């Protein structure tokens, strides 16, 4: 059940209505049932995986809570439990996500050395959202191990923490310290929450169906036929893809936060005007914040972070970003994408770019543009689907730079006619302008909340009107799956 599907528009109001009608004590039970129903709407069997991941990490937490002593025996047992929890939990993820990748690579290497090896061809369907809930559950287990969070004794409450439907399939990857705490406190119906949540949801839908899904038409056309579309088309499509993935994932995160907010839950912000970043390091503090914090806390810092010298720090950065690439997809192009992002940050560190103070607006604009170019370059590898395809498209940019197509009507033959194309460009500019306000420190939601009711209503109507009119939805469209669902 996608957020931009008809069924979700029925599902959510029904869930919210019943949630607030029920006595506070049992509301969380209703949310748990609804969350499993939400997840099972993709495939009922997937619920078994979700349940397994939940059970493993919950049991790990319970077992670890029994070894509270500081003696080496207790510590050893605790370590054994967390290690088992991590291995089992990651094992499920590894099997579903990386097993085929591993076999293909082994097969590729052995064939290069003419070693006959008949490995089975496996075609494993990746269960939706598995990377997200696996990490969320792992985060809890590690937090319990470290003593950062108390153990949750009620399995079902913990199950709700792992399966909470607004953020179940594509994040934000929540921490036990925040969401589990909220699960244990019953929430109340509040006008302020409804208002803020509704605004977030509306903005999320705008990002997804007006910006991302319209851009997707052009991007899919170019990336679908790379031999036909070369040079400037590739540049245009890659630039547009940067906004597509932002609208898609940022839109999803906003809807998730909005929906949760209406139910009284606060989820962490996942995107903070990423394309306004003045360095790649800053970009990664603003892009997919919940995942990067996860990697920082559970990989980068345990590896030593920046505490063990500059070289080690850079190695840790590279390790994190290569892992992040692999997390995004079991394919080498994702590893290269992650690696490039890591390399850029290492270079920034060596050149001291991240630490230099920006003195003028002009300097900032220049750096924002350079950062966008670097990040967008990496998106080419992300979107292309394979390294070979990405390299071939990249070489086409230089060998056939047919720049003139950007100034002709040819760009209106990429799936969007002139008017929808203009609408798409307007949507991008609208989002960029709002992001500029954001980096200037303006809280747009707060600002809107301070305006009069009629003004606010007019804004709602304009945004909804834009979504209904310019959005890619309804008959003739397949509800475009959110890009991050595949991860």
């Amino acid at each position, binding site marked *: 059940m996608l957020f931009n599907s008809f069924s979700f528009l029925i599902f959510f109001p029904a869930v919210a209505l019943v949630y607030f009608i029920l006595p506070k004590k049992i509301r969380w039970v209703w949310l748990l049932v609804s969350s499993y129903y939400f997840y099972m709407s993709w495939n009922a069997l997937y619920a078994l995986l979700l349940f397994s991941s939940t059970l493993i990490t919950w049991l790990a937490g319970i077992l670890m809570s029994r070894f509270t002593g500081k003696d080496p025996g207790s510590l050893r047992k605790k370590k054994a439990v967390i290690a088992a929890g991590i291995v089992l939990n990651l094992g499920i993820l590894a099997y579903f996500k990386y097993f085929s990748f591993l076999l293909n690579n082994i097969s590729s290497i052995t064939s290069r050395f003419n070693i006959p090896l008949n490995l089975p061809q496996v075609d494993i369907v990746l269960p939706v959202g598995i990377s997200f809930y696996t990490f969320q559950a792992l985060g809890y287990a590690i937090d319990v191990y470290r003593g950062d969070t108390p153990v949750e004794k009620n399995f079902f409450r913990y199950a709700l923490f792992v399966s909470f439907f607004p953020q179940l399939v594509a994040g934000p990857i929540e921490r036990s310290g925040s969401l589990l705490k909220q699960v244990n406190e019953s929430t109340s119906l509040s*006008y302020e929450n*409804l208002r803020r949540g509704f605004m977030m949801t509306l903005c999320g839908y705008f990002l997804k169906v007006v910006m991302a899904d319209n851009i997707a038409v052009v991007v899919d056309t170019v990336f679908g036929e790379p031999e036909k579309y070369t040079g400037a088309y590739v540049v245009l499509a890659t630039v547009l893809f940067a906004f597509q993935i932002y609208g898609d994932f940022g839109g999803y995160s906003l809807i998730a936060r909005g929906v949760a907010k209406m139910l009284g839950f606060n989820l962490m912000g996942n995107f903070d005007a990423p394309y306004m970043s003045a360095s790649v390091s800053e970009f990664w503090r603003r892009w997919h914040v919940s995942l990067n914090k996860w990697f920082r806390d559970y990989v980068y810092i345990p590896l030593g972070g920046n505490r063990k010298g500059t070289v080690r720090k850079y190695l840790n950065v590279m390790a994190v970003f290569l892992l992040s690439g692999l997390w995004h997809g079991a394919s080498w192009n994702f590893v290269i994408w992650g690696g490039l992002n890591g390399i850029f940050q290492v270079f920034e560190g060596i050149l001291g770019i991240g630490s230099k103070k920006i003195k003028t607006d002009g300097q900032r604009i220049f750096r924002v543009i350079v950062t966008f170019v670097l990040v967008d370059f990496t998106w080419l590898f992300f979107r292309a689907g394979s390294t070979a395809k990405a390299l071939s498209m990249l070489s086409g940019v230089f060998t056939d730079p047919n720049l003139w197509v950007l100034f002709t009507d040819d760009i209106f033959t990429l799936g969007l006619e002139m008017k*929808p194309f203009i609408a798409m460009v307007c949507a991008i500019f609208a989002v960029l302008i709002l992001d500029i306000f954001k980096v200037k420190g303006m809280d747009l939601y707060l600002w809107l909340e301070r305006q009069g*009711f009629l003004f606010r*209503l007019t804004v709602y109507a304009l945004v909804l009107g834009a979504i209904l009119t*310019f959005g890619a939805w*309804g*008959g003739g469209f397949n509800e475009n799956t959110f890009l991050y669902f595949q991860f």
Partner: protein
Amino acid sequence: MDKFKKVLKCIITVAALALLTCFLSYFYMSKNGPIHRKRFYEQKKPVDVLFMGTSHAYGGYQPMELYEKYGISAFNLATAGERFAVNYYSLLDAFEYHVPRVCVIDCHGFEYGNEKNDPEVPTRCHGIFDGMPMSALKIRAVKDVLSDRPETWPEYFFPLYYYHNRWSELERQDFEDPAVNCYGKGGRIFYGMANAPEPELVAEDDYVWEDDYSTEYAEKIVQLCREKGVDVYYMCIPFPCDAKAQRVLNRAKRLEEKYDNCTYINLMNHADEIGFDYGCCMSDMGSHVSFTGATRLTDYIGEYLKERYDFTDYRTGADAAEWEQEYTDYTAYMDRLREKCETYQDYLDKVFTPAYSYAVYVSDMKTANSDKMLGKLIKKEGERDLAESAEGSYYFSNLNGDICEESGIEAKDTVFGAEYAGSYNPEALVNIVLYNNRTGETKVSSWSAEGRL
């Protein structure tokens, strides 16, 4: 108080946004289908003859012409590409408002055979379903006709779901009152006159029956009409087709053999009686009948039905005033349609009805009639041969039934010299004066071989 205000704000927000959604839904939807149906629902006087079927039917039967000539109250509910299954539900819905004595159904539905899964089906269904009000019947119809495509169901109950993409295709008429484009009681008009080849004729009882999705519903239609006491006439409207296609269309013959309330007429086999000439009665690249063809078919059906049924004449008595108003609106509507014509053949196609007097002056008949279409168009109207044989200048007029035809005549010796000298264009290949017999309004148009001057 504060709580009350908050609740009120929530209610107002939800109501305003729902209202906006409804407005956009109405604004973006194509109004053609719904407005015709709405007119049908709102018609106060009974509908004695109901036409149904595909685009062949909505272009082929003109209820207002039937009304004017025979006083028969008729309505045309046909829509493009309509399958018999949709016909069936359309009829079920129509019977809630009017139960006619005769239902004339176009046979082209047989051509769709077993095409239940044709990707065109969901699009075509909009023609009927968009205009049907929300009801248990509509839900049943959508679920049945589109049983294999549940993903399309929301389109028919929430039109914005389907139509919101129209924002980039909106035209001036989308901002006008849709009613002004709907005065033909469902009859619609095609443009682009075409010389079409004559079809190979096949006897009506020469058919190949097949039990398929189309024949199932064609039969259900007859059964439904029998329950309601309605006579069904399956009619095959002329169009260029081969013998194989006609044997499919002739399937209706089997229904005639099986049911006493069903009659089948293949109008292609009656072209001579009808005066249907494929050289001047087809348009839309030869695929559908022109207005001239439609008036001739309608005339034939009117004559045929008048002989068999004792219909009330709605042109007289208490209904006369209503009739006059409807006809005035219709001719004004026809005037607007004629303004869209790009050739004199197209224009004249929509002139030759008893509603008008007219005079046509052609300066060079050899050029103007090079495709023989003009001659054929005029010949039937005037029952004269001169139109087809003339090569130089040619004049033809029909002033309230008083027909005049001459060749080799100077314009000054015609109505163009006497009354319309100021409007007459000596450079034009064809000049046409059109006089509305009821309103007295006159229009003069001048044409070259390329188009309107």
